[in-house]
């Protein structure tokens, strides 16, 4: 049986990929929440400003709050002016953009709640030419995910219609994707009853950041790094995500999640996988995700009998951040005064494969730390013979190895630390850092992570979204820690002062290996 060839529009060839998204409606479920106001609408407006939204695009906001279309537009316009501070608000453009925004008040749990949505989307298909393509963004609490998927299925909105060029439904799922391995598998099964994997976009906004995307470019588009990117030349890899902020009024959520679920299981392990993956066979989304899943599966399971040797948890006490006194985690609103939720985690990971055998990956993430920064640092091995360290009284030797740093936030860029001779008659050595900063090198505004990811989803490019097997692999690694922590209460919480670099055990984790965290 030969298949009839798919008809391709030849006029599309060579037209900037930026412009090639298909018409669609984006339905934001939970449109009255913070995520919509702070991130999604500013991202969509930025895409509109750059002409990156497809023709025939419209937005439907949906949440329980009663509102008219006009009130929704007004509220979103105010949010954009408040939160999209890097964009120039153009009233004329906004009016045009707002004209394609609609609002529907509805209860997500009830079946009839989606019948009006189905009708509205049918009308918008005619009015805006969305061609029946619908992109559902779940910006709701995770507890509603399964109900929403059921309602979408019951209303017929989540069924892919037959035909080569049939309209598509896609769904974007916000983290956390499950609470542990079992709940993630259950949610996955639920979603897959309705959607195919190719229609599911599990968003991890870290992957939308320029520097994170640049990890692959740096590694695989340059010939000078990859030969060194292995156990022969890399001594260890350190990944730090440090926040100065506390839980910011999200105490209730954080009590349930904790740092391990909130940051490590998704963002940090995604970063580890980007740094450690093998070259994909192509830049196709599945080829990239194959390699990421593969390396996640290579991570050595933690020894739960001796967890303290590779995992540290912490919780912040009161302290000072940038001259301001801040309260302890247990004093935050909606947080139990006896809470054992971790606000800091440090891990020592090993990847048991040919490339990375015995190279430790140290990962730490925490709230209320001394400085807000996220970076990956590749610490190279020292020179085999320290020709200069003796003559210079050990100054050179004490300063550590060559380090390649991928700065992820707040400044995005790359720096390489190396030794050079100081000008003068004596042989004095000096460490220098060669810096590349995205903001200064290109002089253009970097798109926000949500801009990139929403745009990718409209294009149907899943490269930067987590696939089900990668999610499963990361939960498999993390769940034993969660189970162990649930059984054993931490002994000395709170164990670090706000404004420091976390508990002493975090430093001890590296000191035990004769190493230390990079000074930040």
């Amino acid at each position: 049986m030969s298949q009839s060839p798919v008809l391709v529009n030849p006029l599309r060839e060579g037209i900037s990929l930026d412009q090639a998204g298909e018409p669609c409606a984006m339905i934001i479920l939970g449109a009255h929440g913070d995520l919509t106001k702070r991130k999604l609408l500013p991202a969509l407006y930025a895409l509109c400003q750059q002409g990156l939204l497809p023709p025939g695009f419209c937005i439907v906001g949906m949440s329980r709050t009663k509102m008219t279309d006009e009130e929704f537009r007004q509220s979103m316009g105010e949010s954009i002016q408040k939160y999209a501070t890097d964009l120039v608000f153009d009233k004329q453009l906004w009016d045009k953009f707002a004209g394609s925004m609609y609002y529907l008040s509805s209860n997500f749990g009830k079946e009839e709640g989606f019948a009006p949505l189905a009708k509205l989307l049918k009308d918008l298909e005619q009015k805006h030419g969305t061609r029946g393509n619908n992109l559902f963004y779940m910006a709701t609490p995770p507890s509603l995910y399964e109900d929403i998927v059921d309602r979408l299925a019951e209303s017929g909105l989540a069924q892919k219609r037959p035909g080569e060029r049939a309209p598509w439904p896609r769904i974007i799922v916000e983290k956390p994707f499950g609470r542990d391995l079992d709940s993630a598998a259950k949610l996955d099964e639920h979603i897959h009853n309705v959607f195919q994997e190719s229609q599911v976009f599990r968003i991890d906004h870290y992957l939308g950041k320029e520097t994170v995307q640049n990890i692959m470019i740096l590694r695989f588009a340059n010939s000078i790094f990859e030969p060194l990117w292995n156990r022969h030349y890399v001594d260890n890899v350190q990944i730090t995500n440090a926040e100065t902020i506390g839980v910011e009024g999200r105490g209730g959520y954080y009590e349930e999640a904790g740092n391990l679920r909130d940051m490590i299981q998704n963002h940090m392990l995604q970063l580890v996988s980007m740094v450690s993956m093998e070259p994909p066979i192509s830049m196709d989304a599945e080829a990239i995700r194959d390699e990421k899943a593969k390396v996640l599966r290579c991570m050595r399971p933690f020894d739960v009998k001796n967890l303290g040797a590779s995992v540290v948890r912490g919780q912040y006490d009161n302290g000072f951040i940038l001259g301001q006194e801040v309260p302890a985690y247990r004093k935050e609103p909606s947080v139990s005064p006896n809470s054992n939720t971790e606000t800091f985690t440090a891990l020592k990971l090993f990847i048991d494969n040919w490339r990375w055998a015995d190279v430790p990956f140290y990962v730490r993430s925490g709230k209320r730390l001394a400085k807000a920064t996220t970076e990956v640092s590749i610490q190279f091995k020292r020179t085999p013979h320290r020709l200069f360290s003796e003559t210079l009284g050990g100054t050179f030797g004490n300063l550590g190895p060559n380090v390649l740093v991928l700065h992820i936030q707040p400044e995005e860029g790359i720096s390489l630390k190396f030794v050079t001779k100081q000008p003068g008659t004596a042989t004095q050595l000096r460490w220098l850092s060669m810096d590349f900063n995205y903001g200064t090198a290109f002089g253009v505004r970097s798109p926000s992570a949500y801009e990139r990811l929403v745009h990718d989803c409209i294009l149907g490019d899943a490269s930067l979204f987590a696939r089900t097997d990668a999610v499963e692999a990361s939960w498999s690694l993390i769940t034993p820690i969660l189970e162990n922590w649930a059984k054993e209460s931490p002994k000395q919480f709170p164990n670090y002062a706000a404004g420091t670099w976390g508990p002493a055990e975090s430093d001890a984790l590296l000191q035990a290996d004769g190493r230390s965290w990079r000074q930040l």
Partner: protein
Amino acid sequence: MSSVVSEKTAVESFLSGQLTQVDVARIERELRKFWADAAGGPGAPGANTVIRACTFNLVMITSEDDAETKAGDVLDEVVAHHPARAILAIYRPGKERRLDAWVSARCHLQGANKQICSEQITVLSEGCKPQELTSVVIPLLLPDLPVFLWWKEPTMQAELLTPLKNVARRLIVDSARTPFDVSFLANLARMREQSNGSFWVTDLNWRRIGGWCRSLANAFDGFPLDLEYLFRLSKINISYAGGASDGPSAQALLLSGWLAGRLTWQPGSPNAASSHFKGPDGTPIEIAYKPVKHDFAPPGSIVALECLFDDKVVLTLNLECTADEAQIVASTVSPEERQEIESVHFHASEAFLIGQEVEMPGPDRVFEESLTTAAKLLPRK
């Protein structure tokens, strides 16, 4: 003391974008000195951090009377978003020989006290041989960075162009400068053919018709028309801004070249009012050119397209514009299916279009193919 004050003033004026005249033979040396001073050496101006950034070389060749100011402003706008070494090379005839140079920084404040700076070198040659100018410009190119050569002249002058295009990665021209002079496109197509891939050519006018290309592609993607219609096209009428005697404009020819290339239409013998093709199955297809008066569109700009299927107009794309903005509106035979589909860039500044060019790292194959086909459609005089 007074020398320190004057030194400070020189660095400050350099950083503020003011042109500072330098000896033609000492351009690099003077620039190095300015940057060293700005970075904190003797005469550093205050506490601001000055960062010099450069991602490519941009050479603009022009003979315009007001080039020193006008072209300088355009370059300023380009480097604000794309840090570069910009070289403004002005080549004018003159009875007396004059070869002068100026340098200036183009800085933009980032944050409270950080300035990101590009540099501009202006070389003015009057009454000189082309080689005199190129012998100054070429050594100024920063090594290992791509060179974009912006030829802002209505004609190609081989003596000046040849040595420069030999070092350029891309030659950028603008056929809108002589919108009805078909020989310009012919020369460009010939140059591209002879380049053997050693450099690439692009036309800012091609960027301007991007909106039309996208609108047409979109229009046949199911809304308002299904893709099958694209293969049943029998005639297209292209209207462009121009007087009654103006032959097909460069924009109209480029769009025709693009359509023919994408849809594998074989061009027949050219004439001024229309182009004739044979489709892949041998069916005849015609593109007719029609100059129309237009209040806002610059001469030669496309203002409307009509697509006919079996000689009936089914799809119309119209430019609706004001002095400030423009958009393409598509409609099918039934007026209620009118749909706004694309904004176009004919109001886009040269700096914006150049910005698009320098962001494109490789050749624009679709443009090159469209140019080649367009050259086959040029009416013979």
